């Protein structure tokens, strides 16, 4: 079957290009990274979400000041529903900084208010290492000179004051916001500080946001190998760590949708090579360790660690596998996790019968289509009516998605895992894989599903 049109999409036939059922020896990818059909009940967010919410938000020691009316700051306060953990919880994510633009500011301009807000925030929190100013829709339209104000404020305060032009209306999804954050952090931060000392084993982990402590499961593996993590971009990162990132010998890229930009820029300017990695599941995590070890010449050490880690969890994973084998999952994630997790589920004998992303690009869909079996549905930017149709008609045993889709799945009686914010993570690396399996077991076999009463279809 080639591209297909779901029943719920009869009135918006352009969705056919985004909806593909994989067939043998075809070279088709669903259309992606284009404007959403207006009014189609998309689950997508905005450019501001990608910049402030995803990439910048996890940076733990700066004031994230949202320049705009209060709504945008309020909804992203503390990372919204994202749980980007840091070791600075007394400050990071605790407060909500906004210029709180009012109607007269929109009419007469918000530059003065922004300037005063930066100084006031700095005065209240002098220990913060910088101020990141995130621009919102209204600001983009009224044309405040963000760079000028930030430059003046930087001179006044003596700390970094960096503008991000991430107005929500730019781009077609969160994706452009990732790009803007990458470019701005590269231009304004990377390379502005030298590390006190360098080793031959310095590496950055790029594109991990420390969701429920993922990095704290990942980093020890590399550290035991003898590698020093110079910078984590941007989970639990300080702005100084990002400033020193240019001295690493290698960039390990985890989220390959939100951070290929900065990896490319660092490769071009500083000659830092990139290893792309998936740090979910046993096989993929082991491959990542081996790839990194091969670069640094630490192969023996890596094998030792892999052997030890795998031995620890193998019996548990085998037990889960016997319970999960033959189950069918629908994966809907931002982008890379959709393909990261197809292979992870395969380790349990769980087949991905449908996969979707919110803001994936062609390369994401190429990886998804390569990994799923024939007959699987691959759909770009699915809207809530399509999701309901897929969950109802394909009847997956498990749906893995985010909060916005969680209660839809529950109301349809479908077991669900929150893959964005997690249930009880971390889910990365070996120990995280066991957590993940534990949560999958909980939802798959919860007795409550069996108590639901099914009436006749109206």
């Amino acid at each position, binding site marked *: 079957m080639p591209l297909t049109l779901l029943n719920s999409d009869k009135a918006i036939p352009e969705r056919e290009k985004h909806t593909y059922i994989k067939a043998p020896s075809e070279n088709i990818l669903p259309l992606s990274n284009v404007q959403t059909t207006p*009014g189609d009940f*998309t689950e997508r967010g*905005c450019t501001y979400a990608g910049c402030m919410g995803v990439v910048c938000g996890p940076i733990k020691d700066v004031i994230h000041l949202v320049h705009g009316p209060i709504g945008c700051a309020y909804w992203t306060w503390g990372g919204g*529903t994202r749980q980007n953990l840091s070791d600075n919880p007394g400050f990071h994510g605790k407060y909500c900084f906004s210029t709180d633009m009012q109607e007269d500011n*929109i009419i007469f301009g918000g530059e003065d208010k922004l300037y005063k807000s930066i100084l006031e925030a700095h005065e209240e929190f002098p220990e913060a290492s910088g101020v990141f100013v995130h621009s919102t829709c209204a600001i983009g339209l009224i044309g405040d000179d963000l760079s000028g104000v930030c430059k003046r404020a930087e001179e006044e305060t003596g700390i970094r004051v960096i503008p991000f032009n991430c107005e929500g*209306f730019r781009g077609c999804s969160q994706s452009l916001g990732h790009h803007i954050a990458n470019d701005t952090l590269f231009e304004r931060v990377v390379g502005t500080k030298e590390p006190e000392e360098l080793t031959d084993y310095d590496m950055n982990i790029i594109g991990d946001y420390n969701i429920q402590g993922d990095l704290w499961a990942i980093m020890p593996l590399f550290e035991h190998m003898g590698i020093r993590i110079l910078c984590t971009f941007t989970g639990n990162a300080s702005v100084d760590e990002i400033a020193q990132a240019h001295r690493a010998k290698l960039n390990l890229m985890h989220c390959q949708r939100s951070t290929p930009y900065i990896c490319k820029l660092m490769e071009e300017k500083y000659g830092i090579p990139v290893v792309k990695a998936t740090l979910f599941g046993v096989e993929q995590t082991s491959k990542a360790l081996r790839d990194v070890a091969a670069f640094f010449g630490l192969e023996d050490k890596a094998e030792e660690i892999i052997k030890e880690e795998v031995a620890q969890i193998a019996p548990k994973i085998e037990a889960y596998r016997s319970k999960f084998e033959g189950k069918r999952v629908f994966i809907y994630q931002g982008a890379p996790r959709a393909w990261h997790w197809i292979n992870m589920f395969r380790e349990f004998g769980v087949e991905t019968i449908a996969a979707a992303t919110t803001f994936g690009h062609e390369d994401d869909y190429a990886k998804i289509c390569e990994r799923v079996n024939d007959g699987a549905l691959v759909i770009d930017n699915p809207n809530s009516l399509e999701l309901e149709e897929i969950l109802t008609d394909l009847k997956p045993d498990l749906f893995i998605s985010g909060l916005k889709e969680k*209660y839809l799945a529950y109301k349809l009686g479908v077991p669900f895992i929150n893959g964005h914010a997690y249930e009880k993570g971390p889910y990365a690396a070996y120990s995280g894989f066991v957590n993940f399996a534990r949560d999958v077991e909980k939802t798959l076999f919860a007795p409550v599903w069996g108590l639901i009463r099914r009436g006749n279809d109206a």
Partner: protein
Amino acid sequence: MYALFGVHAAVPLVHGSQGCSAYPMRMFNRHFGEPVQVAVSSLGEDASVFGGKKNLVESIKNVIARRHPALIGVITTCLSETIGDDIDGIISEGNYEDSKVVPIHTPSYVGSHVTGYDNALKALVTNLSEESEPANAKLNILPGMVNPGDVLEIKQMLDSMNISYTILSDISETLNAPLMLPKPPFTVGGTSVAELEDCAKARGVIALCEHAGGSAAVYLKGKYGMAADTICPIGIANTDRFLDAVCDMTCAEIPYSLEQGRGRLIDAMVDVHMKTCGKRAAIFADPDIALALAEFVTELGMEPVIVSSSTASRKFLQKAKSVTDGEILNGRDLYELQRAVKDKEVDILFGNTKCTPIAKDENVAFVRCGFPVYDRVGYHRYGFMGYHGGVYLTDLITNAILEWGERG
């Protein structure tokens, strides 16, 4: 959105960028534990330059074709308002067959979330209510931004008095829906569009939250000459006053069951007065709820030393002066609240989940209330309003004080 979720088969259509729908949806999911469906016109860079008309027209067409809703509420944003889209004009040009389409102006740079709810209710009654004969004996109740449990308490009181009424809008079932398969296309419950049209015929209207629904009540009173009042029935005196107003408007009498309910609340308050009397309370809530809570904690023998709301309002300030000699924070943020909590030697704090860090930092007893509450479950199910809701609130308060005492 809050207002539209209480209208049966209604679809909120956000005219703006995608973050403006995605972010609020998550907060509704978290607080209510319910799926919510929101459409967005997905304004991009082109629309920001050339106007959003094309996106809006296409959105309405697509929503109608795929969902056949009874109502679409077009909700504006900073983006569409700053571009200057004439949504009233654009909407009036269309033909929507069986669906009603109502424009609602809610840019974030004017007022607060409370303003948005108030504007939505006013837009609904202004656009949908129709004068027609015969008048009926119904009451219109505008609950404001309260929980499904609160609406349920109100409905149960009115049912016990055999009064017919229309709740504008009624989230009691739509945001606390049962899991029964097959899932209906639209959640059961909510105010019907027909009821919204008929609300003109009612004999009276009571807004439970003047700031969130009061404008619609004023409109109904002015346009159709019905009796109008605003009372937030939290606590003994406020609930008494609410029931008196209901009786005045409908000539109903207070049944014995409600007298018993009142007695039960008094009984609960007497049982715990040794725990509650003398405690110093800080209250953070939307204006009307904050005032009513301040009155109730006073009935419990507490001293409301801080009464605060993030929505700036002259009326709130005025009324707050009559319920407290303490500090009034009018349109202030939680950073200022925390400072006040430190200064005033507070024992117990009332507020939503965003106040949890303050309660921890300052080591005070904490009662969760308002929206959003997502660090505990179930708060949407139960109401503070009415005598029965007062019992629940009394227990919450006392248990919070007891737990605080055990913490030391």
